[in-house]
């Protein structure tokens, strides 16, 4: 975090200018190639501005490291490190050279369990956020595109979901359905989409009021063409920023559900480790080394996604005044 608090650099002059030479209409160049070139330029411009956000860069670097750890977990620690039988250490050992983070009540190495937990937290966080944002985008675009009773009904449903206490609803869903990772993903995805839907709908309305949509309609563009070719590309940046922010919420909610014992008990996750620690009496015996790492990991990953999301948001909307 400390690196993100240094003096802000003045915005690079080139970042302000509309970057790169304007794509000229060269005769013979296909429209598709033109679009691709323009997209590439847009991405390059985006990255140049993102780079100026220190906090966003720190978040990105942290995420890269954690993703690498999650992917290589089976190579770093064997699959048998999760097994309760023939665990290598004694129960509840304090951190030592052999077990850098100590052991749990079954004698398993906590470092190995933490690495395995990374996979679950990231998978659930990413998939749940993806589900949530997909539902939100679909509902937002259709509600903004189709007027009339459809939009009215769907926005009432959205409003209703919006006032529901998310955590209470997710807990209820996780209780009602069977215990598995997919239930957790579903419970988070189904309860967190309304914010995205509202944002996307507002953006859709503003995009659809522009003249080129009218032109497209006059040329015979149907509903699907307008929604997928014109509206979707325009709301995509917003959706991207929203996704990164939803991921951190999803990771926190996953940990919460696991801590309440509402996720698959056979799968090692960070929230589950905290529940194990509490049940094993780590609190009353003062075994802080058992409790501290999982929560710290959750916080670091959630914070990293939040930092990335805020950086993306402020690149797209510089008026927000997010500190660099």
């Amino acid at each position: 975090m400390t690196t993100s608090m240094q003096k802000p650099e003045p915005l690079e002059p080139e970042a302000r200018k509309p970057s790169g030479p304007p794509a000229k209409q060269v005769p013979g160049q296909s429209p598709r190639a033109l679009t691709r070139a323009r997209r590439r330029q847009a991405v390059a411009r985006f990255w140049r501005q993102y780079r100026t956000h220190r906090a966003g860069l720190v978040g990105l670097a942290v995420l890269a490291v954690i993703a690498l750890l999650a992917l290589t977990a089976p190579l770093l620690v064997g699959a048998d490190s999760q097994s309760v039988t023939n665990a290598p250490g004694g129960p509840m050992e304090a951190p030592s050279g052999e077990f850098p983070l100590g052991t749990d009540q079954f004698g398993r190495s906590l470092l190995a369990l933490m690495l395995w937990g990374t996979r679950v937290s990231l998978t659930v966080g990413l998939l749940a956020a993806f589900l949530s944002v997909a539902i939100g985008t679909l509902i937002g675009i259709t509600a903004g595109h189709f007027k009339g009773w459809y939009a009215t009904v769907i926005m009432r449903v959205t409003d209703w979901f919006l006032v529901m206490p998310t955590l209470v609803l997710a807990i209820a869903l996780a209780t009602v359905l069977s215990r598995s990772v997919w239930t957790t993903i579903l419970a988070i995805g189904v309860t967190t989409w309304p914010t995205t839907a509202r944002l996307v709908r507002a953006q859709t309305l503003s995009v659809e009021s522009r003249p080129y949509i009218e032109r497209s309609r006059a040329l015979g563009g149907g509903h699907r063409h307008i929604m997928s070719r014109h509206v979707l590309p325009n709301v995509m940046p917003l959706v991207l920023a929203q996704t990164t922010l939803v991921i951190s919420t999803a990771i926190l909610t996953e940990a919460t559900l696991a801590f309440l014992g509402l996720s698959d008990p056979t799968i090692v996750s960070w929230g589950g480790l905290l529940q194990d620690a509490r049940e094993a009496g780590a609190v009353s015996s003062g075994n802080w080394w058992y409790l501290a790492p999982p929560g710290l990991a959750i916080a670091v990953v959630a914070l990293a996604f939040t930092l990335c999301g805020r950086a993306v948001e402020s690149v797209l909307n510089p008026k927000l005044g997010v500190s660099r």
Partner: protein
Amino acid sequence: MSSESTPALLKGAAGVESTASGGPAPAGPSARSPRSRSTAAYARYAAGKLAGAAVSLFAVLVTSFFLFRLIPGDPVKQMTGGRQVSTEQIAAMRREFGLDLPLWQQFTQYCGKALTGDFGTSYQFRAPVVDKIAEALPATLLLTGTAFVIYTLLGIWLGARSAWRNGSAGDRANTAFALTLYSVPSFWLGLLLIITLSVGIGPIPGIFPTGGMESGNTEGIDRVLDIAHHLVLPVVTLVAVEYARTLLVMRSSLLDEMGSDYLTTARAKGLRDDLVRRKHAVPNAMLPTVTLLFVNLGTTVAGAILVETVFSWPGLGGLFYQALSVPDLPLVQALFFVFAAAVILMNTLADVIYPLLDPRVGR
């Protein structure tokens, strides 16, 4: 919800604004008519919001009934807890809790009773659900109320300071610290606080109780102090994870005001920087924050579930968790309704009060 209605109201009130914002009101009978018309408009607006809230409350009631019917397991079997019971006894219990009726009759009965404030009898406590909730409510209100006041004041104060020195080292440290705490799971922070300050590690002695609301053997002023002593750690936990939201909203709404001409005027008058902030900028920036405050108040009640569980606080959250594990359908339904109703009522209150606070909107 409120953010959407604001622009529409702004348009409608454009004519009224000029009379409200300054200058002597035009004399004569013509001055009265816009005022009374705007009052009528406000009454219509408020009535619309209240009707919307009523619809939402009913929708929540319907959901609370059907959602929890999906929980696998027979509630009667759970109640008997594996004891030997005859089929007649089971039938009698089904009749007692109205579980023998068809689902739609159960539903109409449930709605009818809920309207009169009767949410049925708890399976596990064998007591009216309303009584159980009334028992736990003061504890939750005490915890969330205290935390709400503290994190609101803290968030507004820090947010205002942060925006005033936008981009400075203090601002960045402030925002970063708030965001970090915002990313921390509340239950984990609670557990860590218990370990360090209640159980104690190494040289740190345990100075706070590990849970509960009171020790139970105190009277009068001692009892108040005892409860306050128990209150410290749960409130610290809630404040730590919640104040970031208020801070960020306050910060961005003050940033919006920063370039305004009236601040330049205030400085030109020779006011100290501190006074410009406190007397001119902050009151204006407060307006958007007010909406958030109400929303916060509504969500904190449900947000306290985890903190209450960790600190074994005898409030609604702990009750909800207890009821879920049975599952104690009437209690779960009623609590779900209470949590959602808190949010709905607070949102509606924010919508209704906002035009009264900001003369540019409505009126």
